[in-house]
């Protein structure tokens, strides 16, 4: 069953087409990675779902209901933005207190604070943290809520290998509990480790949607990285490939 459905969604930023008639479904209990080259529309897709941007056309459904003009549905979604720049003078502990109050929703940050080693800088001001520390706090701020869908925009940015491994373990255990995860990513090894499904975007168009294994089969490649190169090269007409450039949709 689809938790989220994008129906022919288009978005332009002035003259730039960010998304062009994109339809996609995020299945309940899946871990879906939105991948594609820079400027392919990954973040735009997520921003549209979170109500941060307004689609020019098309519909986005959350649990079958159109989200346009609504905000209550976001109670069921926890979000981690790509850039984590919080007010410099707020302490990390204050950020952990602020979001549950704003959402009027209980949160359980302590296991995440322990797991990511945040307790050592819990009372520091945001402006004094390093990039990696900020990313860990940002992740914990999203994952501390018990919601059905987690939307993470580039979650591995700036994370050290240990934190990345911890994140993989954490997300895997969340998936085992039936949670749904939607994320964007550039690190293909991470995507391969965690994603069950892939939405591949190139210049605002969807080129593939379906199970990760299906993508590898279709592109006759052995890794997501090769499959991605395959699709991008095919799109730009650099090489003639067996995969046709028209969008492909597969059911898992």
């Amino acid at each position: 069953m689809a938790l989220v459905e994008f129906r022919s969604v288009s978005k332009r930023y002035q003259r730039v087409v960010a998304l062009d008639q994109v339809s996609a479904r995020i299945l309940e209990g899946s871990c879906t990675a939105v991948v594609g080259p820079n400027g392919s529309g990954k973040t735009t897709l997520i921003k549209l779902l979170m109500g941060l941007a307004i689609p020019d056309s098309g519909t986005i459904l959350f649990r079958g209901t159109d989200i346009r003009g609504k905000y209550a549905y976001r109670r069921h979604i926890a979000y981690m933005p790509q850039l984590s720049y919080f007010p410099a003078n707020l302490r990390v502990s204050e950020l952990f207190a602020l979001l549950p109050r704003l959402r009027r929703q209980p949160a359980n940050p302590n296991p995440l604070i322990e797991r990511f080693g945040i307790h050592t800088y819990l009372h520091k001001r945001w402006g004094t943290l390093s990039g990696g520390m900020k990313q860990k706090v940002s992740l914990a701020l999203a994952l501390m809520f018990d919601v059905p869908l987690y939307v993470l925009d580039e979650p591995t940015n700036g994370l050290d290998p240990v934190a990345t491994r911890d994140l993989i373990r954490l997300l895997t255990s969340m998936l085992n509990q039936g949670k749904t995860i939607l994320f964007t990513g550039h690190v293909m090894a991470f995507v391969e480790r965690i994603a069950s499904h892939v939405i591949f975007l190139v210049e605002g168009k969807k080129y593939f949607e379906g199970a990760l294994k299906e993508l590898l089969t279709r592109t006759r490649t052995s890794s997501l990285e090769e499959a991605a190169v395959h699709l991008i090269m095919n799109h730009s007409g650099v090489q003639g490939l067996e995969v046709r450039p028209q969008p492909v949709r597969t059911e898992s």
Partner: protein
Amino acid sequence: MGQIILYVIRDLVRSRWTLAYTLFYLLVGFGVLLMGRDPARAMVTFLQIVLILTPLMGTLFGIMYYYATRDFQELLLAQPLPRTHVLLGQWVGIALSLGVSLLVGLGTPFVVSGFGVGYSLVAATLLGVGMLLGAIFAGLALSMGLLTDHRIQGFGMALILWLFLAVVYDGLVLALLMILRDYPVEKLALVLTFLNPIDLARILLIMQMDVSALLGYTGAVFREFLGASRGMVASAGALVLWLAIPAILIVWRVRRRDF
């Protein structure tokens, strides 16, 4: 919205800019009161400072805060909250922080020096008007930020708006009234005064201080048409109503724009 207001205040209270702003008022306040012996003249000096500085600082804090917290706004807007609550909450938070700075910065010298004894109502009006001007201009600056993603463009627009209302507007009004001097322009002058919050603040304070020489043409028209007490009520009321302008602009813009 209360939580957003609280976090903005918490953030700004710790900001070195807020501290500098408060200290500046403290220094100026004590400086003017210690140097000048005539309270009336001191009050005129405070009036000039408040009329120029509070709108400027409101503008600067509003636009700086908007761009400095854009990414945090993104996180707040992704929460189950109406968009308007986030931006209006930030505005109220900035306005209250600026207001507290003014109250502490100028209010302390007033109280410590005993200046408030003879001029308590004027001093209270001065502080109230300063807080209102700071809030109005912080809101206008936030609205300018909401119009463009380009930081420099946003800063430019906000500062030009402040410059226009603080400096250029009066000149234009005077020029217009000069051109139309053969016609009955009093009502026009009255309307034009209502269109500028700084003019309203100036007239309200000068009428309260009863310094006719500083009223100017529009102030004189104000007093002639409405009388001193009704004029004060009208200008104070209009100044409070002016708060609706940035609120409307923020709500209008925040509902339509992408973040």
